[in-house]
């Protein structure tokens, strides 16, 4: 059994940090909504653009052709905006992990380059059998 807890400074700090935290409305569903909206706009825009072409060709009336042109331009705009929204919200999660990994790798590279003594020591120290030097990933066995 664990004994009764001591006054926990970490716990106090945790509570204080949480109290100061600005908590927005739950936005997990909002991201999905924007992504879906982007996909929908992109698809609708492409359909409108494609639809405008036969509409413009099906008539000799310049007024009707003007309407079809406006429809087509609207469709292209919707497709571009929708595509941008879709990319923004679908790639965010992926890029977040990629950025974290990049920053970790750069950090390690910086550590090696800035401290040659450590690097030399690591290189010269005998690695245990079957283990890589410099923390590098070993070749597959």
């Amino acid at each position, binding site marked *: *059994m*664990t*004994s*009764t*807890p*001591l*006054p*926990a*400074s*970490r*716990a*106090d*700090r*945790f*509570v*204080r*940090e*949480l*109290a100061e*935290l600005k*908590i927005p*409305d*739950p*936005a*997990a569903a909002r991201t999905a909504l924007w992504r879906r909206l982007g996909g929908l706009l992109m698809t609708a825009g492409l359909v409108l653009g494609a639809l405008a072409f036969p509409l413009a060709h099906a008539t000799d009336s310049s007024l009707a052709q003007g309407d079809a042109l406006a429809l087509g331009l609207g469709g292209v705009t919707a497709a571009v905006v929708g595509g941008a929204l879709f990319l923004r919200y679908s790639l965010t999660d992926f890029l977040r992990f990629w950025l*974290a990994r990049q920053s*970790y790798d750069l*950090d*390690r590279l910086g*550590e090696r380059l800035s401290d040659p003594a450590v690097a030399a020591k690591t290189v010269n120290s005998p*690695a*245990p059998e079957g*283990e*890589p030097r410099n*923390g590098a*990933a*070993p070749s597959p066995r």
Partner: protein
Amino acid sequence: MTVNDSPLLELRGVRAAYHGITVLHGVDLTVAAGQVVALLGPNGAGKTTVLKAAAGLHPPSAGQLLMGGRDVTGIRPGRLARAGVCLIPEGRGVFPNLSVRDNLLMMTFCGRGREEIEETAYDRFPVLAARRTQQAGTLSGGEQQMLALARGLVTDPAVLLLDELSMGLAPLVVAELYELVAEIARQGVAVLVVEQFAAAVLKIADHAAVLVRGRIQWQGHPDSSLQAELSSYYLGSPT
């Protein structure tokens, strides 16, 4: 207790669902600073979902998640992690192709320096120091679990969530790990342990709850009568 005497972690009427299928039907659970709470129950009871809800990974469909008295329902898990909530998932959650040292250094996101992280981890788990260049995937099960614990501890957690710590480990190793968990709790960390291997965790738990089909069926101070009753919860009939 804490500055405002609120439990560090509190689930209040938490309901959760996967694709419209409700798996938690109003779970109430509190964990105070320095307390070890064991959440027991058979397979598929929803224990892991409780942990996910507590870590912010699975937003509840109803109910509240409170931390230090503050309602943090729906907050992003990253923000909870930065504040001090640490989940050690089932299956250890280490990077098998990275060395022990690299696994630890991945935790620099918490703002602590490399040396500090290594020192903290190796002080508590000397066996990891001897294996710092070894790939995590080549460690024994117990050592991998130690590495997972070390990765959590170096973030200086205030709330520690452990999922099936004993999975695939020998009883002696499990006992050793739970002694470490008790030691961590004594430092003021609120610990919620999800476990099927009840005997080991009940030795260190201050409070236990039994979850069956998404509902807390029993909770209170763990004593010998609970051990006997557990079989009826797990198997449907007492031994």
